[in-house]
């Protein structure tokens, strides 16, 4: 490789680093620093952050209990999601499943469901088993499984697709089909780890379902931080615990990033997806099992939801849907239909922002030619650093992020009450989904192809569009789909910065649910159905538009 090739490679990487730094600096770092600085002054009659205070919080036996509960809950949630999600991904990728696209879309739907609705579904399920509300931790883990199994299945499936040369080679060498398939499975470990870390972080910062199903029995760090920040107005305590939570997230990320293909790391490029060429057709038991598991995961909450939206009191009715067009927020606020439209508009913009900043963060950490997404050993820290930083919002308490945003954008410029602050908060929360989908995909690009293209005289831009984009695009589409769903369903941080005029549908939903009466509950459920359906349609559209036409990659 000539010097000039290296030199031209630096330009896109520097540009990416700039974009990522600006995005993350504005959306994440500045708000957190602002809040940390603020907590060093007395607040609402409480003492300022001091070294004594820090040690006191850390030494508090409650902190240890809360930390233990957090790890236990998130660990179980991750284990259960992977245990169901990875086989499901396998089925999707290899099972010749009829109607696969439809199942994939269905699987991304629960992700946007309001936590209260998922909590209700789990309680119903518990009631059917005669165990309603009896095992809070089990209920919380079950709810997280409902939320996130689809995420695991969809993020992992592309990595399991196709036979791959190694698998074919293994079969030619006389390995059984199962042993040969194991080769692909082992190579997919980094992607499984990436999806696992997403589920883990989502479970750590999960708020609504933990509150609804856990009560006081399952107090996680996220809940404890919210309590300190908004109940006790104990900013220093919240800041210390938020740092602790961020630490948990960073450890999880570091562990996931250490995950490497289990076999033949040097040949990982060979397991490129051979597009257009699927494994030997094997419809049958796998396909059936895939549908059964997929439907069991999705149908339970969705079915309950649809039924609920069609009932008011003891009657079947379409009134809940009719009301969406005419009714407003309680008390004559903006209309529900408008809140839906706004939600989708905001989420589209937030997804674009997240896609740009997220991809930039991945590229900044390691660009083609420099060892690709996974850089040479000496540079490892940088890639890990950028990705961790861009994934950090997922491990950051919504209360801390929301209050930080308020501080950072509350004076100059004063963005309080604008749409910009809502979209920004959504984009920051959606960012990790892009990073964890795009990152592993970029790692799987074969450096030799990049170098070959460079040697053949292809320009940097050409190399990107011809070598990198086709490999990364499917993952980016999946990531964008979930980023969109996250932005669409986000209430945590957004609830701190959204005002009536910009109330999104999930906020309207929470508002409706906090009013008594069957009419508002019915409208809330109908709103949830429309939101879920909209997310499904949006993800399908993204899929159709974004997935490159399948053509042999040579």
């Amino acid at each position, binding site marked *: 490789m000539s010097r000039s090739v290296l030199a031209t490679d630096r330009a896109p990487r520097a540009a990416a680093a700039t974009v990522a730094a600006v995005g993350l600096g504005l959306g994440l770092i500045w708000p957190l620093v602002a809040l940390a600085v*603020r907590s060093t002054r007395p*607040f*609402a*009659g*409480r003492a300022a952050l001091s070294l004594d205070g820090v040690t006191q919080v850390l030494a508090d036996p*409650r902190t240890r209990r809360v930390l233990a509960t957090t790890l236990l809950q998130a660990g179980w949630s991750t284990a259960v999601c992977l245990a169901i999600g990875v086989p499901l991904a396998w089925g999707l990728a290899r099972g010749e499943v009829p109607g696969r696209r439809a199942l994939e879309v269905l699987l991304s739907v629960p992700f946007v469901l309001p936590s*209260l609705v998922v*909590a209700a579904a789990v*309680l119903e399920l518990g009631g059917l088993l005669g165990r*309603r*509300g009896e095992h809070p931790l089990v209920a919380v883990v079950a709810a997280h499984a409902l939320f996130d199994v689809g995420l695991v299945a969809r993020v992992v499936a592309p990595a399991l697709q196709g036979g791959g040369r190694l698998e074919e080679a293994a079969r030619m060498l006389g390995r059984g089909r199962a042993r040969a398939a194991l080769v692909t499975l082992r190579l997919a470990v980094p992607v499984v780890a990436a999806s696992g870390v997403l589920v883990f972080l989502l479970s750590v910062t999960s708020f609504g379902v*933990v*509150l*609804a199903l*856990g*009560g*006081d029995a399952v*107090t996680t760090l996220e809940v404890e931080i919210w309590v300190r920040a*908004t*109940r*006790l*107005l104990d900013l220093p305590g919240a800041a210390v615990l938020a740092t602790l939570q961020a630490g948990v997230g960073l450890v999880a990320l570091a562990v996931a990033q250490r995950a490497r293909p289990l076999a033949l790391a040097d040949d990982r490029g060979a397991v490129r997806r051979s597009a257009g060429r699927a494994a030997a057709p094997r419809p049958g038991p796998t396909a059936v099992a895939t549908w059964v598991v997929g439907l069991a995961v999705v149908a339970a909450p969705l079915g309950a939801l649809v039924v609920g939206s069609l009932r*008011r*009191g003891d009657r079947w009715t379409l009134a809940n849907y009719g009301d969406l067009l005419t009714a407003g927020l*309680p*008390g*004559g*606020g903006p209309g529900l239909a408008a809140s839906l439209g706004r939600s989708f*508009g905001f989420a*589209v*913009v937030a997804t*674009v922002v997240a896609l740009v900043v997220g991809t930039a963060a991945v590229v900044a950490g390691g660009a083609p030619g420099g060892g690709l997404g996974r850089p040479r050993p000496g540079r490892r820290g940088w890639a890990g650093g950028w990705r961790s930083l861009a994934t950090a919002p997922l491990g950051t308490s919504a209360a801390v992020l929301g*209050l930080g945003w*308020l501080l950072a954008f*509350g004076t100059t410029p004063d963005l*309080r*009450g*604008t*749409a*910009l602050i809502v*979209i920004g908060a959504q984009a920051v929360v959606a960012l990790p989904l892009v990073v964890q989908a795009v990152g592993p995909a970029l790692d799987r690009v074969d450096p030799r192809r990049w170098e070959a293209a460079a040697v053949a005289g292809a320009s940097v831009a050409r190399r990107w*569009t*011809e070598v990198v984009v*086709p490999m990364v*695009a499917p993952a980016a589409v999946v990531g964008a789909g979930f980023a969109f769903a996250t932005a669409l369903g986000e209430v945590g941080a957004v*609830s*701190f910065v959204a*005002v*009536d*005029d910009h109330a999104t549908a999930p906020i309207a939903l929470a*508002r409706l*649910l*906090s009013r*008594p*009466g*069957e*009419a*508002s509950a019915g409208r809330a459920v109908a709103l949830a159905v429309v939101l879920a359906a909209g997310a499904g349609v949006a993800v399908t559209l993204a899929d159709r538009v*974004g997935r*490159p036409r399948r053509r042999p990659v040579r």
Partner: protein
Amino acid sequence: MTAFRGPLTALASVVAAFGLVACGDGPGSSGPPTLRIVTYSSYVIDPEVQRSVEERLGVRLELRAAGDAGEMLAKAALSAGRPEGDVIVGIDNTLMGRALAADLLEPYRPAALGAVPDELRLDDSGRLTPVDWGSVCVDADRQWFADRELELPPDLDDLLDPRYRGLLVVPSPVTSSPGLVFLAAVHATRPDPEAYLERLRENDVAVVGSWDDAWYQRYTVSGGDRPLVVSYASSPPAEVHFSEGALSEPRSVVLEATCARQVEFAGVLRGTDQPQLARRLVDEMLGEEWQASLPLANFVEPARADVARPELFERFAPRPADPVEIDPEAVDVGRDRWIEQWRTVME
């Protein structure tokens, strides 16, 4: 990769179009000044009252509502001195001490304060104006108890009776404001609050995160498994009102001896650039029109004693004869310890 150009262009134009919309929907530079009310997300102003107040004051009213009362206060405290609005409403007697300590309000005493009973006027510094009150009580599923020929538990002590084992659901005082009022009532009335909580737990009380969870998920009236719920004295009229004709009688009944008073306050935010208008808005909040609209807008009682209640309230929302009065100072001093104790007992 021409396949990508089209979608990218389309996305770019969506972004551009959206940017225009986002920038274009701010308040216009002409027209009446905007008066902003900072509150929690479920606070409601009756639309007709809003119109007539806007007309009288020559302003446009805008709600800056986000989160629950605790989140509202945390946000307002962080912006003390450079407030997000002009008037705040929704600070209750359990949050009052924190709000005063955070120094986010300007003193103002409206003339109509004279019509408000003494027991609601809890702030001597004149910064917090009581605008409404409610009662946090145990509500019961009337039919459930009738079906089992079980008599309703008369007061808080009866909740410890084994006959009512496993029947009560409480929104946690750690995360919910009616829950905190309930806990404050236990501390105000029980000689040994810790022992009371321990026995409540032994009697299998269910604790959930929020009022929504308690009412919608666990209360038998909503299809749950608990026929007793810590809620409000105004929940029965709310049931009827929000059923939109499906119910003529509430299914819940209020256990009046369990009630404790929750008072909500409004105040002028320190640092507002329209202090005159802000004061006039607080006047309006204590005006007869606003006060009379409160029951059906927010399901609370008007602070003024001389304002009539709607028929629905007269029929179904009892005004407990002798509610537990919560001393804001006691809450302020005790809160951290109470919450720690509650969690130690209930976890």
